[in-house]
């Protein structure tokens, strides 16, 4: 159940009559290695191990007859609690349509996520619309259109339009006139350091006031997850996160980095390319996965 690294951390603490601060510090070295190998950002790891150390040096561990077990329990629970509450899906607004905007880096899985969300809403009997606001990527509109037909959900698009903000605005207007339950605006992938492109997102936000802005992040993201989450959080504001491509063998430490920096709830994980490959986020499962 627990990883090699944690086993070795356990061994450092077990078999000692009395646990010393040094035993805990040494065990934390193994925890640090496990988290770094899992792609958790090194600054987030430092904070995490400091917090665990404080808890672990509490009287409980030092006087327990199974200090190793208790230590591992503290590590696991601290990680699980940091992951946030589970199953906090996107809430539909009291007055429709619920406006959802999806953003993130190039290739993270946004367009696919939009279609998956629409599939999820339609399974709950909601009627909505996808807005194709990626005006840059070749065949982006075709991609969303094709996925939309497969959901099935209506897709609003304007070919040869160079104003993404206007497209979202007009799409929302169309959705209101049809009394739809939700709209999901798919945006172009962009770098958090691209000022002009980040401004496009804040322009969209200011124009249509989304109820939910979702950061779609690649589950295999490494140390950079902290910078990405920080920029999107401070510039745009993130209400929820979807972590994609979690059907691979990556440990997914980006989840902890993103949570630690943005405080936004991870709502779903993408577990495949098909439209039903979207799962509600489970913090305990994520904690176990990261710990390896």
């Amino acid at each position, binding site marked *: 159940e627990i990883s090699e690294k944690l086993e070795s951390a356990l061994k450092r603490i077990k078999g000692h009559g009395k646990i010393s601060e040094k035993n805990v510090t040494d065990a934390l070295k193994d925890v640090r290695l496990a988290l770094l190998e899992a792609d958790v950002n090194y600054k987030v790891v430092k904070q995490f191990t400091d917090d665990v150390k404080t808890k672990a040096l509490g009287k409980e561990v030092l006087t327990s007859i199974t200090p190793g077990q208790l230590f591992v329990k503290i590590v696991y629970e601290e990680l699980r609690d940091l992951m946030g509450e589970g199953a906090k899906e996107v809430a539909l607004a009291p007055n429709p349509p619920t406006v959802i905007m999806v953003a993130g880096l190039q*290739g993270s899985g946004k367009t696919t996520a939009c279609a998956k969300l629409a599939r999820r809403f339609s399974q709950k009997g909601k009627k909505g619309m996808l807005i194709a606001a990626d005006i840059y990527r070749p065949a982006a509109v075709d991609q969303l259109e094709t996925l939309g037909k497969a959901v099935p959900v209506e897709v609003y698009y304007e070919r040869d339009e160079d104003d993404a903000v206007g497209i979202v605005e007009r799409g929302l207007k169309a959705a209101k006139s049809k009394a739809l339950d939700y709209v999901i605006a798919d945006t172009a992938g962009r770098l958090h350091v691209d000022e002009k492109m980040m401004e496009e997102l804040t322009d969209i936000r200011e124009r249509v006031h989304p109820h939910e802005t979702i950061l779609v992040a690649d589950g295999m993201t490494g140390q950079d997850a902290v910078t990405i989450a920080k920029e999107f959080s401070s510039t745009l504001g993130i209400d929820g996160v979807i972590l994609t491509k979690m059907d691979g063998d990556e440990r997914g430490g980006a989840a902890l980095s993103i949570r630690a920096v943005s405080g936004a709830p991870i709502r779903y994980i993408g577990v495949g390319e098909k439209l039903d490959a979207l799962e509600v986020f489970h913090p305990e499962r994520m904690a176990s996965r990261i710990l390896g």
Partner: protein
Amino acid sequence: IARGGGDRAGTLESIEELLIGADIGVRTAGAIVEKVGSSGISLNEESVRDTIRNEIISILSGTCQPGVDLLVKPHVIMVVGVNGTGKTTTIAKLAHRYKTAGNQVLLAACDTFRAAAIEQLEIWAGRVGADVVKHKPGADAASVAYDACSAAASRGMDTVIIDTAGRLQTKKNLMDEVAKIGRVTGKVVDGAPHEVLLVLDATTGQNSISQAKAFSEVCGVTGIVMAKLDGTAKGGIVVAIAKELGIPIQFIGTGESIDDLAAFDPETFATALLG
């Protein structure tokens, strides 16, 4: 400026953190720092950085450079990698490079799975002046590759670049498929695929090693393209890949336009990594 013993440990520790923060990986970072730390060089910060930089350059330059045989026509390049790393865009950049050098380029639309994958490749082909061989969506990817290589051979074209669907390396049936695509090209053109380029995403962490291992085992990767280096991620994982697997880095991707491809240079990369 670090001078004494305590500062020495501090300097090494902060450089190790910088390397970890660049996605070099804790093991490789530790090995590099240990080698430099035990080398007995003067431990002021500048000389530590220089020594680390040189160690990284040496690791990156040490990968075996396969002699790319450009004598066989068409020269067949297969591009592989996990989902969304930048394969299709990289192919457009490569095609542009080959066209600019006077080659006739054919693109094979072997991503027959993802929505609008063929349309995306066709638009790029139009922009760079390359031809496309495609079938209907859902068609067998290997047969598209077969037809593309046959067409290029019969038309006397110089270069075939094969676009494949993104696939996670843990999916056995998809990895079998990419191996099959590679084998099929060899039936049409001697020694094909002459190059197999693995496109990695610079923002990806340690999983890139697992990707490089798996793709290498299944279809023999001859070179790596590290895309999206125009972001804040440093792509340090290539140092670990060079050290553990010896696969050379051929190109880096620095943007979304056809000119945003540069030949990999270990010195420039090592300097940027420590910057």
